[in-house]
């Protein structure tokens, strides 16, 4: 703990819209017609709808089997983890902009001659942790019911949904898809349970308490 000056607001109090602003969307492919779309939970979309029997492609009306969602979700999580482990570094000096996978034996030192910039992982562990939390939120029944999810589209976007979903149908659809969402969520939780950052965050809270 770095004392009172190092105190940050508890991350869970930051609204998801803000917290997940840099998170990548979950892209799904329709196994039947190969349409691809962004999945954003039980929200309005021109491409998919949540029916009482699960996720449905609007183009061909294919109903996704749970494994057809979960396999793509897991693959997507693993691509993010693998990109994180590719270990791309970036120099923080904008006049240098060195992007490389080379690491100096002095870690933070930039390898461009004379540059005094500091090297950082371009895909930070904080960003990866947030990405996993974002995927987790999509299948969180409470957040779906309370309409707390990060919106997929903004007014004026080309894909901004034509139809809206009202709150009562979101609530009903969430309950109907609870089992599905629990299985989706278990896929994300598998990786969150191995994510060291989550536990380090806990550690620093305890450090602070011991100081008092």
């Amino acid at each position: 703990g770095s004392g009172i000056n190092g105190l940050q607001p508890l991350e869970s109090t930051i609204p998801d819209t803000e917290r997940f602003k840099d998170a990548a969307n979950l892209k799904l492919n329709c196994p039947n017609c190969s349409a691809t779309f962004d999945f954003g939970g039980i929200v309005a979309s021109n491409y998919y709808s949540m029916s009482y029997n699960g996720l449905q492609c609007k183009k061909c009306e294919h109903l996704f089997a749970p494994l057809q969602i979960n396999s793509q979700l897991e693959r997507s999580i693993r691509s993010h983890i693998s990109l994180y482990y590719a270990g791309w570094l970036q120099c923080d000096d904008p006049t240098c902009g060195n992007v490389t996978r080379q690491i100096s034996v002095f870690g933070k030192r930039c390898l461009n001659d004379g540059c005094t910039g500091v090297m950082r992982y371009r895909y930070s562990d904080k960003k990866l942790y947030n990405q996993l939390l974002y995927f987790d939120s999509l299948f969180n029944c409470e957040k779906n019911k309370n309409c707390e999810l990060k919106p997929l589209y903004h007014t004026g976007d080309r894909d901004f949904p034509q139809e809206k979903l009202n709150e009562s149908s979101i609530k009903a659809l969430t309950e109907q898809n609870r089992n599905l969402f629990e299985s989706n969520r278990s896929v994300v939780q598998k990786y969150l349970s191995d994510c060291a950052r989550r536990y380090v965050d806990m550690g620093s809270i305890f450090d602070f308490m011991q100081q008092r």
Partner: protein
Amino acid sequence: DPEKYKFRTMRQNLSDAADVLDMQIEIIAEIVQNHYKLSASEFGDPTIQAQSEIHAVGRIVPESPSDESVNTESLALETSRMAGIGRRVRLNLTDVNEVSLFLGQIVAVKGKNADGDSFKATEFLPLPYPESPVSTADEIQTHQKALNGDPLKVTVITGPFTSNDSFDFSHLTNFVERLNTEIKPHALIMFGPLIDVTHPMIAAGTLPHFPHLKSQPQTLDDLFLKVMAPILKNIRSNIQVILIPSTRDALSKHAAYPQDSLDRKALQLPKNFKCFANPATFQLNEVFFGCSNVDTFKDIKEMPKGGNTSMRDRFDRVSEHILQQRRYYPVFPGGITKKLLPNTEGGNKVYEHISGADLDVPYLGLTEFVGNFTPDIILIPSEMNHFAKVEQNVIMINPGRFVKPWGHQGTYADISISAPDLDNGKLTKIEGPEPVYLHNVWKRARVDIANI
């Protein structure tokens, strides 16, 4: 120590990574100094101008940090913090006739930095090969008795276990039958991926309906339990099965190398299955096996210089590099696989990241040879052509993948090692207060790469 692999992933610290990369140079520097009986004063800082010739140990890196495609004209040597405050110097190889280099390799080199700009190499000192393991006479006799004089038989298979366009496990079903009735090994070493997370049908979500199942699998873990595990459970209980994961295994939540073992109970596999880490070093009787499941043979983008070096078989050279570097995956940065996307961003090519070596750099110490000796047999599966060869008295094997991408039969490795015998002259005695014996497995083993 399997407990050391149980670290949590997804939090690499750049300073910890740098410590490990620095340590790698220091470890080899000490080995070189002892082996060639050099005094500390014969080593120098190759990054600064000097009149005399010096010895230097460092890492082969690209001259420009952003350069990913290098050749022998565009390389530099990185020094350790102690030897050259971590500076890098351009390597001039004009005077070197024969050498083979790759990014991440630690080298010992003799030469001179006459102009302050580059280090002109005159000679690369070959790194000494680590020692082979030994056993006492008592141990040898115990292992001989356990085998009843029969040879030790080990079968090795490597995933993926389905083609790229199906989840049909009939090749595996048939092979398990052959294993039980015909091949009948003492042990089966099985490398992942069991369920390959980069399988094209997983990315596209086009997984099929499994008509013989009453309840369809919901997740990839469930797919293993319902479709693949029942096949593996048919392996006879007197065959010891050793499972080694891949970072492409959907079943592993630990998606980095070094990689924690799979969870046998969660996979609902019987007691004759043992789950080991990746990489893993272990003994079957006296024989030491070193198993690593990252594609070193593909990822070492070796740069040979000189006619004699280039003429040699590439797998021979790469095998020697692995032994000399004393690590199963000495490449740095690790390999990555990406896919060119049809769309561009302002005329620039756009790639999708698919997979990679996924090195957890702070933990690379766990990928070094255990106890500083070479295993008797090293198994490193690769997408490259299957092979089995002897390098520096170590048997190196790539069994080849079990099913080819388009569904054709793949290959497996069949290893047969005659029981150790103190009297038949095949073991080398090393005199001492208690004499010990080299295993000479390369003299006693027969390896066949056969169709599944």
